[in-house]
Every structure is written in C-alpha cells, then in structure tokens.
C-alpha cells in the first residue's frame, strides 16, 4: 500500500563539510512521489469541474444573445447590452438597495446576536440547562423557510393567534405580516429564530478552543467576569469572528431567496424584492431570457468578489489572518 505522505530520499552526508545544494525535483519526480495525494484530490477536482467550473464558464452567455436552440458559437456577441438593459430596468436598483439593506441588517443585528448567544451559552455552567438551551436555540435552523414563514403567519398574521387574541380584547387586527414598513423587523425576527442559534454553534466551537488556564490566570490577577470576557474570550474568538465576517461580506448580495419570495405577495414586491427574487421573476419565470439572468448573476458575483477581497485586505491590514494566511 502506498504511503499517504511521501518523503524525499535522505540526503547522503558523505562529506559533512561540503555544501549541499538542494536539487529541485522535476515534475515527473514530484508526480512519482505525490501521486497518492493527487489521486485523493481527483474526485474533488472532478466534482468542482463538473458542478462549478463548467457551469461558471457558461457565464459567457451574459455577453451573448443566447438561445439554447442555436449552436453555441452561432450566438451573436452583444457586448454589455444585457448589462445595459439590466441597469436601465427601474426595478433593478431598488432590488439592489433592498439586498444591501437586508445584508447590512443581517450583519449588524444578527451576527452580534450569534456572538452574544455563544457568550451567554459559554457562561452557563449547568450542562443540563446548557444542552436544553442549545437545542431550543439552534433546532429552528433545520426548519425550511416555508415552515418558518407559516409559523410566523399563524402566530403573528392578520388571522393568527395573537391577532385573534387582540381582537377578542376589542383591539384591531394585526397587520404585521403584511406591512412593508415593518418588514425589516419581521425579517430580523425570522433570522433570529432560524439562524442565530446555528451561528452560535461555530462561535461555541471557537470558545472551546480557548485555553482554560488563561481564565484561571486572569481570575488570579483579579479580573471579574466582564474583564475575563473582554480580555480573554473576545480576543480568543476574534480570528473566527473576522473570518466569518469576511465570508459574510463576500456573500453580501446573496441574502437568500425563499424567505423573500414566500412573503412577496403578502408584503408587496417593493419591500421584499432582492437580487435573487428579481432574477427569478424577470428571467427564470419571467420572459427576459437566460442571458439577462446570467448578466444579473455575474454582476452579483463580481461585486461579491470585490467585497471579499477588500474585506480580506482590511483584515490583513488589521493584523488578522483573514481567509488565508498572508505569506
């Protein structure tokens, strides 16, 4: 059986005083030594090639007047015409702004919530309370958006539990699940219920990696609970916070689809239209065609790439690791 990790043959030390020159191994030699690793990597490369790189190559149709019924190279090249049509569409910019609004809200109001939940969980000593709390908080992550939205409508909808209770007391019917003005709050509540617990798990894992002797040392030095959190816990999980933050910024224009699509009729398109629903309604079930949708997707990808590179750069400037270790 081949070894998993090969080593270069030991250099013979005939004359310890002679300067040895490390010979660079040829491609064939490297192939001979590393082939088990390459074989191991092959399925992943194949998977990426088939499901990622090949589909990504099709982004080129954003620059064509593409029809699936023509031979590929017979599709006329139209330059940036689809992008021009995209930017001229009066509903593109509102969809983009909505997307940025939800992304910013997610970042500002949900991300810290996950960190806070993790810190609270970390400070709970009782294992029983901790595991119960953990289950309650992160289980909704496994619910589909259909279920989440349905639960919210059943509880907070115009004909829901709370609304009927208020009406029984002589009040007015609730319009919370159909009010565009308060949709951001509703969306945040849905994220908080569904996603905050899951985000917490990752931070909990990071918290577990902090050396407990640091806390003991801090306590011996007289640091109270707050001081220990500020000087030990938060610096301990800072690399993870930064990493997740960068990844979130990279996907800032992908705020999700189902949550907005499911509530689009009830709330109205103006408050709920994000880039993904825009593409869906204009291109997938609309009649603008595949090239238009691809152009919108490519735009989203380009913005995401720029943001992730910028955020990574900032992280490196601040002395953090970012998404990769700066060489």
């Amino acid at each position, binding site marked *: 059986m081949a070894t998993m990790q090969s080593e270069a043959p030991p250099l013979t030390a005939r004359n310890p005083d002679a300067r040895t020159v490390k010979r660079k191994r040829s491609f064939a030699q490297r192939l001979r030594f590393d082939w088990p690793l390459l074989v191991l990597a092959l399925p992943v490369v194949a998977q990426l090639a088939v499901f990622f790189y090949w589909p990504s190559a099709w982004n080129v149709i954003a620059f064509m007047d*593409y029809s699936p019924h023509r031979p590929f190279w017979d599709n006329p090249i139209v330059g940036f015409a689809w992008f*021009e049509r995209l930017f001229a*569409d009066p509903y593109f910019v509102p969809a983009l702004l909505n997307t940025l609004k939800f992304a910013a809200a997610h970042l500002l109001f949900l991300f810290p919530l996950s960190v806070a939940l993790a810190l609270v969980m970390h400070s709970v000593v009782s294992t029983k309370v901790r595991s119960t709390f953990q289950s309650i908080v992160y289980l909704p992550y496994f619910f589909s958006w259909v279920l989440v939205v349905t639960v919210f409508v059943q509880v907070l909808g115009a*004909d829901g539990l709370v609304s009927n209770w208020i009406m029984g007391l002589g009040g007015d019917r609730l319009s919370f699940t159909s009010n565009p003005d308060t949709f951001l709050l509703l969306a945040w509540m849905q994220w908080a219920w569904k996603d905050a617990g899951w985000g917490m798990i990752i931070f909990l894992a990071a918290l577990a990696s902090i050396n407990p002797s640091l806390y003991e040392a801090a306590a011996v030095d007289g640091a109270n609970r707050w001081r220990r959190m500020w000087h030990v816990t938060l610096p301990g999980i800072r690399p993870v916070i930064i990493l997740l933050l960068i990844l979130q910024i990279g996907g800032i224009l992908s705020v999700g689809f189902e949550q907005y699509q499911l509530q689009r009729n009830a709330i109205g*398109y103006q408050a709920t239209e994000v880039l993904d629903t825009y593409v869906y*309604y204009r291109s*997938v079930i609309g009649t603008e065609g595949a090239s238009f949708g691809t152009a919108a997707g490519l735009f989203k990808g380009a913005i995401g790439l720029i943001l992730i590179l910028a955020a990574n750069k900032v992280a490196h400037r601040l002395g953090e690791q970012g998404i990769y270790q700066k060489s």
Partner: protein
Amino acid sequence: MRRRSLFKAAGLGAIGAAGLPFAAACSDLKTGEGSTQTTEGFDFLPEYKEWPLPAEPDLVGDPPNHPSAFTSYPDPVEAISEVPSGSGTYEFTVPFWGEAPSNDDSYFAALRDGWGGTTINLRQADGNTYADTSVQWLNANEYGDGILLFSWMLGSHTNFQETVVNSFYDLTDILKGDISGRWPLLAGLPTQSWAQSVWSKDPADPESARLFGIPSTFSGGPGNAMFVRDDLMDDAGIAMPTTIEELLEAARTWSDDANGKWAFGSIDWILPQMFGLIGDDGWSWDEKQGKLVNDCEKPEFTEMLEFRRLCWDEKLIHPDAPTGTLDGGAMQIAGTILFSQENPVRWYEYTALVKDGAATGSIKPLPPLAAKGRTPVLKASTSVDGWTFLNKDLSKEQVEELLDVANWCSAPFGTKEYELMEYGVEGDHFEYDATGTPIYTEHGTKIVQAPVNLKQYSGKVQKFLTGDPEVVQAQFDYNASVQQYIVPSAFEGVRIEAPAAAKSAAQTLSDQQNDIAYGRAELSTIPDIVATFMENGGEEAREFYTDVYKSLNEK
C-alpha cells in the same frame, strides 16, 4: 493589493466603463422582441371530413361560445371498430393539480388495451408551476416523447416560436391532406384547431409555416365567472347583484370582519372584466383616439382599483388575501366567504360535493356586471385549449403510432372510447345510476376525475356540456344569457407573443396594482404606475400591437 496592481485594476475598470456604451450600442438584441403568427389560410392542413356524431345533443347551442349540451346519457357506441396494434412505450409530460394518480392504476391499463397496446407513461408535474418550469424542460430537451402545454402557458416562454420549430416534430408531411382513412377522428377536428397548431420556421416568411402540434379541444364561451353561495345569500336576504354597485352593497351587508365573514377571497383577475377592461393582452382599439390603448390608460382602470381598495379598507375581503394562497373554494364551502372567482367547472365540482355530503347549499355564477350604468362586456376565449407536442427525435413510425392513439382520444361524448377515457372501467371507477348516467366510485373520483391525465392529449371532435343534468341545463342557460355581452378579439386569426419588455412591465404593473389594492400604496400613485408601465415596455408594445392590428385591418 500593491499600488501598481491597484492602478492596473482601476485602468481596466475605466476601459470597461468607457467601452460599455459602445459595446451596447453596437449590439442588437433579438431575444424577446416578440413575434406574430397567422393562424388561418393554410393549404397543408388535414382535410376536414365531418365525423358523424353518434348522438344528437339534447340542447343545441351555437358553438364554440355557446356549446350544445347533453342532459341525458346516450348509449355509447364504438367509434373505432378496429384499433391498430401498437407496441411502443412512450413518456409524456402533463400538468397535474392535486395528488397525481399512479401510472400503475387499472385505468391506464384499460386505456392502453382500449387504444391498441401503446404504452404512454405520464410524467405528471405540478400544474401550479408547470408553465414556468416547462421552459427549462424544453430548453434541456427533458420532457420525454411529448409534452402537453395549455395555450395560456405560452406567456411564460420567451421566443416560443423558436422552441417549437427546434424542439418538436414537424407533423406536416404526415398529416397533410386526406387523413380520414387512418385517422378519421383527427380529420373531424375543426380546421381552426389545426390552423392554430401552426408555427413558422422563419416568422418573417409565411411560406415556412408548418404544423407542429396536436390540438386539444376547440372551445369558447366565458372561461370564468364570479360564483356566489346563493343559499347563504338568500338566508341573509341579499338579492342577486346585477351591477357593481349592488355587488358592493351585497358585500357590505354580508361581511363581518370581527366574526370571520368576508364577501370575497380574492377578486384580482375577475374584476377587470366587470369594469370593461378586456383588451387583448390589455390592448383594444379606441375609435375616438384612433389608436390602440391599454386597459391601464382607461378611466375604468382607476375605478377598478378604487373598488379593490374600497373592499380592502372596508374589510370586505379576507385579510390574508394578499398572500395569494387562499383556497377560495374551500372557504366558500365553509361559508367564510360568499363570492369566489372560479372556472365554470367549479359548478359541477360543487354540486358533486353537495351530493356526496362534503358541502352544503349551492353556487351560481353572477350575471355579467358593469358599473355606472354601462353595458357589461365579456371576454370569450375562442381557441384550442392547448397542444400536445411530440419530440423531434421520434421516428416517423413512432409518430404515426402516437397519432393512432390521438385519433382514439378524440372520440367525442356518446362513444365507448370517451366513456373509458372520462369515466374509466365500469364497476371499478364508475357505476351507472338509475338513469343510466355514469357516477364515479370513490376510486374513480381519485384517479379518473383528475383534471388532466390524457384527456387533453388530443381534442374532441366537438365539445359539449355534459355531467349533472341540472348543472348542464343551468350552464347552458347561463351561456345563452351572456352571448350578447361577448366582445370578439381585435386580433382574431393571429397568435401574438408580446415583446419581453412589455411582459416584464405588465408583471410589474400587476405587482403595483396589488400594492394599491392592499393598502401598501396610495390611489394617487395610479398615474405614476401607468407612466412607468408605458416607459418600460408599454409604448414598445403599443407600437408592436398597432402594426399587427393594422396588418389585420388592412386586409
């Protein structure tokens, strides 16, 4: 990023930005520019040979807008005495609403034996999303050997003409001329049905027109109506409304938001007709202005939205109506809502539910209504219901075998073939009642009464009103009473695919109407949404439709 690479990136960006208008200006997007197709005057269609009906209808109407009807069940006769022998196995994609029946059911085995042995397995897809997803299946050539598309589904497709001529089997050479020898029932389909199944390979060249689809039944008449629980209305002492104003009063009298009673579930697609907004794709000729105008440019559009908003503000409409997912039919059965916008098929379903004890009372369609003393108008859809398209990869022999089956499926009411197709096997799927009329068993209700199956594979020689005799009589009378209000299409004889920009603008206009109707935007924004529509595809559509209108009226 090093400073040099930053400059490099900025330079590339600047070049890109500068080149953008140039590149765009050089382009000429053909996708989504719209197309038209004449649907009459062809010399390559199957020659019409009347197929004599086995039984004369009890009530004779004026088809297609006023179909004849049967109030009794005639002894079925055999339409095809010698069925051809087929042995192929095929797969068809069809839409389905509800729970799809299993392909293994004895109903499908009986059909297979009935038409000569050809096996057609159904790939039954959710009817609610079928129109949209069919676009992707067709692009990927993943729909089996055939696909059923209803004519209303074409609106979801971009460049459907291109899809048709590239994806589907060209039936012209097989079906041209006299086909009454092998396929007498297909020869008995109205010539209009075949003419509406034609697409041109090159839209600019009328000579390139070819026959691509097997047409479903040719039908007409009112395709929808506002149905009311007349028993509840009588109990509440409300008279049947005959005008919009009376409808509003009836709704006010009935609704009681605090106690969970509302007049309407949703009224979005039935209401425009009541306000006279029945343009073809929104467009109609205005004699005074001497041009085509869109429904949204008419003062009645504002009236219609005011009515919708009033219903919302006064809580005459269910508070969850904006979700668009209310089951109006179920709520009407429960008595939660009084009026429901429905297809006339609902009349038969409701009556069957009452007979089964699953519902109480009865429903009736409202007569055509209008506001401010105007004369009501009605839109009738006078066309084939849809088409079955066969895959271009099939061989000629396979297509002929499938046409044998289509011929069998075209047998009209009063034949044994029709009985097997519509009711299944006696004793298993249906039983005859005392009057000799087939009544579904529980199994039959689940499997055969299903909305689509293979019933739309090929059109019936003639469409009749059939079913519960009382409902048949009532619908026949209703159809007779509304004929005077039917307004013919301004674009008769031509199939139009609107430019993509116009379709997108229309979708946005619809979203904005909902915003106003459900209190999310003010009524004062109506001129703005109309202007937005016009600027973003409306004017382009006006030009496009005007050209078509002029070409039709100059002939």
